[in-house]
């Protein structure tokens, strides 16, 4: 049997966050899930869920592709330092590859740094992006 004051708190949370406990504050979820199995809890959550479903009727379609390319075009340009770093790292790889091929005459030096500044990604595939601060 849930403490009446606790039940009151959970009814209030259902009024605030709706009928899906996964959306409630993390610290409340475990106990709220137990309360949800009581008749009072089930009733309160069902009531809140009615409104949630009504809100869900408003769906929107977004098409990010066009604006995505405009945004990407204005992203910071690679710095001189970055271009030089890629050029050197590319040079190291090219030299290693050249050295691994027995019998070839000399290393196949890469051309100008431009060859290794790949717009679609790095020369070694896409970088993983670890979001800082998240």
């Amino acid at each position, binding site marked *: 049997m849930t403490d009446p004051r606790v039940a009151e708190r959970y009814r*209030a949370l259902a009024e605030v*966050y709706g009928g899906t406990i996964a959306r409630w504050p993390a610290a409340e979820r475990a106990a709220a899930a137990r309360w949800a199995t009581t008749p009072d809890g089930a009733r309160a959550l069902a009531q809140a869920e009615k409104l949630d479903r009504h*809100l869900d009727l408003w769906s929107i379609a977004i098409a990010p592709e066009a604006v995505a390319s405009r945004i990407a075009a204005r992203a*910071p340009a*690679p*710095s001189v330092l970055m271009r030089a770093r890629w050029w050197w790292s590319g040079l190291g790889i090219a030299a290693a590859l050249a050295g691994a091929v027995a019998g070839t005459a000399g290393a196949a030096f890469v051309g100008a740094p431009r060859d290794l500044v790949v717009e679609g990604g790095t020369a070694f595939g896409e970088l993983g992006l670890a979001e800082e601060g*998240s």
Partner: protein
Amino acid sequence: MARVGRGDRAAARLLITAKLPRVLALATRLLRDRGAAEEVAQETFLRAWRGAGDWRTGRARYDTWLHTVVLNLCRDRLRRRRELTGEPVPDRADPTPDAEQTLLTAERARRVADAIAALPERQREAIVLVHYQDLSGAEAAAALEVSVEALESLLARARRTLRARFAAEQEAERD
């Protein structure tokens, strides 16, 4: 973010892929105008690019920061719109309905959108952030720059108003 600041285009593209849909969705719901929402999205990322090199781990979550920027940009537009036309929200059917919706579903969606648009600004923002953007209470409070208690009060009032409005609409339909 540091890589974006150094001009890593791949990192920038990853960030766009990850965040743009949510930024666009938020702006679209608040402004109900696809063109304006795209402009807000562009401006949001422009600010992200400008600050990328200075971003520090341990500051607010990046997602929360993005939401705050979008909110502020939308508020500015809505304020200007109100000053020009007297109406903060376009007085027309939502221009971005899902293409597969039937007319009836589209009409119901429009009524929900209208009801949310009629809420006081902070309540509207709170509902959009928590219900549609799926932010937690703490994240939404941070984006709105209010306490969690204040956010919960906004949500409670908004939901109460919406429930009453929808009930009245359903009652009117039955008559």
